[in-house]
C-alpha cells in the first residue's frame, strides 16, 4: 500500500525523468532561451550593456545545446553538466580555432551575474513540503556545513602536505 508521501516522491521522480533537459530537446531549447534572456538582463548591471553581451550569451546558449545533444546521442550516461563544461573547456583551449574571439566575447558576460537568476528561480520554486523540511533540519544543516568545511580543508591540506 502506498502512502501519500511516497506517491509524491514517485511523481517527482517521474517528472524529473521526463524533464531531464536532454530528453526533451525542443522544450529545453525554448526554456533555455528564456533563462538566457534572464541572465542577459541580469548581466546589464555589473557586466556589459545588452548589445555588447549578446554574442557572449549566444555562445553560452550554443555551448549548452551542443552539450545536451551529445548527452542525448551518447551511448553511456554522463550528466549534462559534465558535457556542457567539457564543450566549454575544449572551445577555450589555446589551440582551438577562434578561441581568442570566444574568450573575448565571453568576457562581456559576468561570472556571478549568470548565476544570480538561477537562485531567483530556486527561491520561487520551493514548495510547502520543502519549507517544512528545511524548518525541521535547518539547525542540523548549519552544524553539518561547518563540519563539511573543516573536513574538506583539513583533508586537502593533509594530502598536499604529504605530497610536497
Amino acid at each position, binding site marked *: 500500500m502506498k502512502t501519500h508521501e511516497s506517491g509524491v516522491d514517485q511523481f517527482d521522480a517521474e*517528472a524529473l525523468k*521526463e*524533464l531531464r533537459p536532454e530528453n526533451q530537446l525542443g522544450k529545453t531549447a*525554448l526554456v533555455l532561451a*528564456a*533563462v538566457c*534572456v*534572464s*541572465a542577459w*538582463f541580469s548581466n546589464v548591471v*555589473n557586466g556589459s550593456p545588452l548589445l555588447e553581451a549578446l554574442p557572449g550569451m549566444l555562445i553560452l*546558449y550554443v555551448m*549548452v545545446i551542443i*552539450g545536451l545533444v551529445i548527452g542525448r546521442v551518447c551511448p553511456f550516461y554522463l*550528466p549534462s*553538466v559534465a558535457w*556542457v*563544461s567539457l*564543450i*566549454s*573547456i*575544449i*572551445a577555450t583551449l*589555446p589551440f*582551438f580555432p577562434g*578561441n581568442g574571439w570566444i*574568450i573575448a566575447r565571453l568576457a562581456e*558576460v559576468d*561570472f*556571478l*551575474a549568470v548565476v544570480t537568476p*538561477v*537562485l*531567483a528561480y*530556486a527561491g*520561487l*520554486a520551493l*514548495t510547502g513540503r520543502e519549507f517544512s*523540511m*528545511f524548518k525541521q*533540519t535547518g539547525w*542540523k*544543516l*548549519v*552544524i*553539518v*556545513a*561547518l*563540519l*563539511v*568545511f573543516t*573536513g*574538506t*580543508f583539513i*583533508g*586537502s*591540506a*593533509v*594530502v*598536499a602536505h604529504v605530497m610536497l
Partner: protein
Amino acid sequence: MDLKLLLDWRLHLMVIVTSMFAEWIGIVRIPLGPGTLLLLPLLYAFIIGVLFNPHLFSVMGKVIPKPVSNAAGPIILIAILPFIAKFGSTIGPAIEQIIAAGPALILQELGNLGTMLIALPFAVLVLKMGREAIGATYSIAREPNIAIISDRYGLRSPEGIGIMGVYVVGTMFGTLYFALMAGYIASLDILDIRALAMACGVGSGSMVAACSAALAEAVPGSRDELLAFAGASNLLTYATGLYISLFIALPVTEWMYKRLKGSRQEVRHENP
C-alpha cells in the same frame, strides 16, 4: 510539464527584476574580526525569490500563481547550464598553468573526500538525518556540486535540500569561517603553509580570497607564493573537482550512507 507554464512571462519577468535588483545591490563586504563577511547578489536573489514564493505567503499567489511556482522547479536544471558553460571557459585558457601545477595540486583534490569522513557519520548517526545528509556532505556545496545534485536528484529532493542548506550556510558564513580556520591552523604550525594554501582553493572565490589572505597575514614573507598556490588549486577544483565529486565522492557517499543507515536499522531490529 506544460510549456505555457514553463514560459510564463510573469515568472521570467519576476526573475529578471529580482536579479537586476540583486545585482544593483552588488557585493557587500562586512568586516568582522579577522575576516570579512562577503554577501553576493545570488544570496539576495534567493531570499527575494523565497519572499515572493506563493507557497510561503499565499498572498504572493497574485503575483506568481502556485502552478507557475511549481514550473520553476525544472527550470532550475536548465538555468544552471549557461553558468556551467561560462565556468568551463575560465579553465580552457589556463590549461598550461594547470598542467604545470603538478601532482600535489591534483591529488590534494582527493582530500575533499575528507568532507564525508567526518561530516557524514555525524549527520547520520548523531543528528539522525535522512538522505539530506548525502547532498549536504558529499562535497563542499559550491555551484558545480549543486549542478550535479540538481542533475542527479533534482533540487527539490531531500538531497537538494541538503546541498542548498550547506550552500546557504557557506554563502553566509563560509568566507568568515574559512578565514578563521585557516589562520588558526596556520598558527598551530603542524602542516606546510603551502599545503594550507592549496587547501584554501577548495572553496568558492570569496572563500579562497579570505582563506589565502588569512594565511598571508600569518606568514607575511611568502605572500605571493601562497596566493599563487591557492589560485592554481582553486582552478583545479573547478577543473577536476566536478569529475571527482561526480565519479568518486557521490558514489562513496551513497555507499557510506547505506552502510551507516543499515547498521542503525539492524540495531533497531535487535531491540524492537
